[in-house]
């Protein structure tokens, strides 16, 4: 939107305001197809699941604060640690990064007015919410999945886990995968086709490169998990033998399928963090990213190489050493694109004039913890060392530095960074810095001693441990760290909640950000930009003459597209104007269809197969009805 709106420009703005009016109230939120509202829905839903996963983490740490703890029964502990893993990965990090950050920011960053498929976007949110509630109904019933998020068979087979705990897992993750698949298809098409005129691929923000890489990785990784879960449910419900060794199946098939998904998943979790870091670092360092093309290439390489390393999760199952040596080498190679990015970030900070405001502090914390987690990751690519520490707390330490330190810190920093854009108000800087230090110290105190206790021989997933093995003091320190960390996280949320109502007005670009979203008002209007911006560099906000040209075009009414819900489509590589797309305004079909899909999975779980088929038929009819209405519905 233009910086200085002239009377001529104002009439175009008013026309857009009329065309893009949103429905008020609850109905507005239920039927919205606006990417920003969907992003906000994703944000609150995944934040709620983060709270649930956090409570589960605190229960685990309270149980392990001393030897022979009995806060939780062994059965409850198994459900809690399983749900902690499932929640944090499938219901928090992925929906928070792709669903909230990706949905809200991608169209803004590329100068579009919405995602390519707004109704599919809404559907993916409601399906995600359905799958999350589906899994939490299990916990409320006391039937939550209890074989770990990795869910190894035969422990997860009907013979050893006869209840419906594992069925919640099998159906729940297939269900959840539908939502993620729809999201990433939307991302790929949006990034390829809806970029503002002039934003050729080499001018696309690194944030978008990271999300493009994530989208492709998820698209190719998820089928492996869905198939694994389908086989699991066929084994459990219909007596198939995919994993049954007595009938010629193989439990290692599950492990292969799971980790073919599971390792790319690690990079799916961390790549959005890279994208957030490459947005925050240039803004606060007041300079362009060092070696932009190499960093973009490294982001894509990480996602690609992530598909070739899955057996390093299986270094102790007894495969041949030749297999192991190949996967160890592949795992070591991933260090290089990661190191490229780390040193590009450091070099950018070093040669710029950095200002260490709260978001930047979280990014520096991220770099420090990513280095720790990366280095411990290299050590477990050394096969003999991994075979010693595999499934011990050393691994728990390693992946929490990577997932919490390196993936969640940028999420927290990103929450502060874009808070003014989303709410129009500033957060409290002093409280922000205190919350950073609490979180930073809490993370270190919680997870660092786990390296030592793991080397001392403490296995993962134990609901308790005996005294006298040298583990007790370290576990006590870890639990205290976890409480400290929880205080830091609560303080972040409190800061943002209070600032939402009392914060100082933010203006358009309080962070001196370099990407397009900072050119529109805070919060952005439903149509994002009164005039579709034109881009000539990867740092559009640092090209003031381009933004003035946008203002001039608004005065002339060029590129305003006020005839309806419209956004331009451009060519994939060079982003030359291709056509004008009509976008659907709002629709009740996505939440309705999501409800019917939930019905299918609920009936499958309860073995009412014919009713499930009925719900499936209703899904089909809903889809037909949806498509009978054009985009004007």
């Amino acid at each position, binding site marked *: 939107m233009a910086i200085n709106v002239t009377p001529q420009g104002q009439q175009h703005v008013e026309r857009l305001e009329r065309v893009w009016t949103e429905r008020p109230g609850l109905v507005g939120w239920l039927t919205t197809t606006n990417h920003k509202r969907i992003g906000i829905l994703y944000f609150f839903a995944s934040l709620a699941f983060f709270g649930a996963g956090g409570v589960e983490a605190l229960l685990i740490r309270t149980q392990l604060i001393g030897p022979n703890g009995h806060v939780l*029964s*062994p*059965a409850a502990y198994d459900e809690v640690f399983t749900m902690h893993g499932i929640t944090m990965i499938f219901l928090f990090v992925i929906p928070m990064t792709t669903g909230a950050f990706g949905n809200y920011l991608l169209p803004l960053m590329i100068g579009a007015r919405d995602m390519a498929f707004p109704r599919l976007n809404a559907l993916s949110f409601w399906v995600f919410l359905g799958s999350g509630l589906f899994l939490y109904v299990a916990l409320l019933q006391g039937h939550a999945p209890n074989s770990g998020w990795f869910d*190894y068979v*035969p*422990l997860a087979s009907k013979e*050893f886990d006869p209840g419906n705990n594992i069925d919640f897992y099998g159906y729940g993750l297939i269900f959840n995968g539908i939502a993620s698949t729809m999201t990433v298809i939307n991302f790929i098409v949006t990034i390829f086709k809806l970029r503002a005129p002039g934003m050729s691929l080499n001018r696309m923000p690194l944030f978008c490169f990271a999300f493009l890489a994530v989208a492709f990785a998820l698209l190719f990784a998820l089928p492996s998990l869905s198939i694994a879960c389908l086989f699991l449910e066929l084994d459990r419900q219909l007596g198939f033998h995919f994993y049954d060794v007595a009938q010629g199946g193989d*439990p290692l098939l599950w492990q292969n399928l799971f980790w073919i998904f599971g390792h790319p998943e690690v990079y799916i979790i961390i790549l959005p963090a890279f994208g957030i870091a490459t947005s925050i670092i240039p803004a606060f360092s007041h*300079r362009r990213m*060092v*070696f932009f093309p*190499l960093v973009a290439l490294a982001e894509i390489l990480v996602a690609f190489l992530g598909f070739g390393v899955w057996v390093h999760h299986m270094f*102790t*199952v*007894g495969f041949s*050493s030749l297999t*192991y*040596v190949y996967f*160890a*080498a592949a795992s*070591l190679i991933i*260090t*290089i694109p990661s*190191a*490229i990015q*780390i*040193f590009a970030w*450091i070099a950018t900070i*070093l*040669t710029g*004039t*950095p*200002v*260490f405001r709260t978001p930047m502090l979280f990014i*520096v914390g991220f*770099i*420090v913890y990513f*280095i*720790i987690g990366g*280095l411990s990751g*290299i*050590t477990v*690519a*050394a*096969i*003999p*060392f991994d*075979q*010693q520490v*595999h*499934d*011990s707390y050393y691994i728990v330490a390693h992946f929490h530095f990577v997932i919490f330190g390196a993936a969640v810190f940028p999420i927290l920093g990103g929450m502060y960074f874009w808070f003014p854009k989303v709410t129009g108000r500033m957060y409290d800087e002093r409280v922000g810095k205190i919350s950073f230090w609490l979180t930073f110290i809490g993370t270190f105190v919680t997870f660092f001693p786990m390296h030592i206790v793991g080397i001392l*021989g403490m*296995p*993962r997933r*134990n*609901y*308790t*441990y005996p005294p006298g*093995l040298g583990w007790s003091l370290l576990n006590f320190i870890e639990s205290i760290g976890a409480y400290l960390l929880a205080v830091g996280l609560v303080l972040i949320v409190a800061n943002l909640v209070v600032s939402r109502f009392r914060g100082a007005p933010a203006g358009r670009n309080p962070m001196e950000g370099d990407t397009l979203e900072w050119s529109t008002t805070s919060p952005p209007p439903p149509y994002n930009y009164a005039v579709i911006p034109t881009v000539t560099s990867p740092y559009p906000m640092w090209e003031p003459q381009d933004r003035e040209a946008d203002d001039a075009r608004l005065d002339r009414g060029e590129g305003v597209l006020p005839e309806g819900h419209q956004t331009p489509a451009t060519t994939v590589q060079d982003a030359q104007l291709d056509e004008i797309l009509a976008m659907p305004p709002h629709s009740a079909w996505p939440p309705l269809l999501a409800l019917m899909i939930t019905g299918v999975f609920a009936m499958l779980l309860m073995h009412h197969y014919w009713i499930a088929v009925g719900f499936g038929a209703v899904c089909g009819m809903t889809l037909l009805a949806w498509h009978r209405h054009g985009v004007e519905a």
Partner: protein
Amino acid sequence: MLAASVVVFAGAVGLLVVAYLRRGVRGLPFFGERESVPEGMVLVFGIGVPLVALVALFGVSDVYLVKQTSPPNPSTTAMTINVIGHQYWWEMRYPGTPVITANELHMPVDTRVNIVATSADVIHSFWVPALNRKIDMVPGRRNRVLLYANQPGEYRGQCSQFCGMQHAHMAMIVFAQRPAQYRAWLANEERSAMTPTTAAARAGERDFMNDQCASCHYIAGTPAQGFIGPALTHLADRTTLGANEIPNRPAWLAAWIRNPQAIKPGVRMPDLGLGDNAIGQLVAYLDGLH
């Protein structure tokens, strides 16, 4: 590995500290604002240095060290012990002898022992941290790992693959013994179970064979031929019960028989609902199985 990690970490954090100290100044000391310098830095530290370090690590650990700890060729070891994982205990069999025991593994010192690890139910993982790496026990696979102790002593082992509710209490003790002691232990284990001598013990034996006990447990030389639970032929010589969960004393044994679920919730052995008298007789019998 630790030293190299500390150097990398200190170097990277050092650069961040320099960045903080020079936050008001553009560019680098000595090099100024030439863009080729930070780009070169990314190439050197991001590609060059890691490449050298990783090749070295790969050579040392994944080519050389991995051979040192890898499973032995069957013909090169003095002996083999079969270890079978169960929910939630370990069965040990000594090939070439009739010995079947549980949860306490005896082996001679200064001897390369080939452990053949298999599973009777779900996936477990055999791990004695002080003696060598771990190996998973996967249904349908016969995995192997080398155990070697150069000091006599007791070494704690534990299941390291989540195997269900009592995964936390699936531990074992490895007794590495001097050869003479080991041979004496083995000779005793090869014998069938001792015949009970007291009236109470004889009553206990009768109860054991007639009640459900014998359908799950094995006692050599008696009708008890079950392999669902641990073999009890020489139970009185073991130091712990319940896979290293409680000490092997008559009072603990009685408590275990009275209600195993109270001591180890989720264990396969049910609460048999026996009276005090029957429990006392069973303890008298089992406590005499030296």
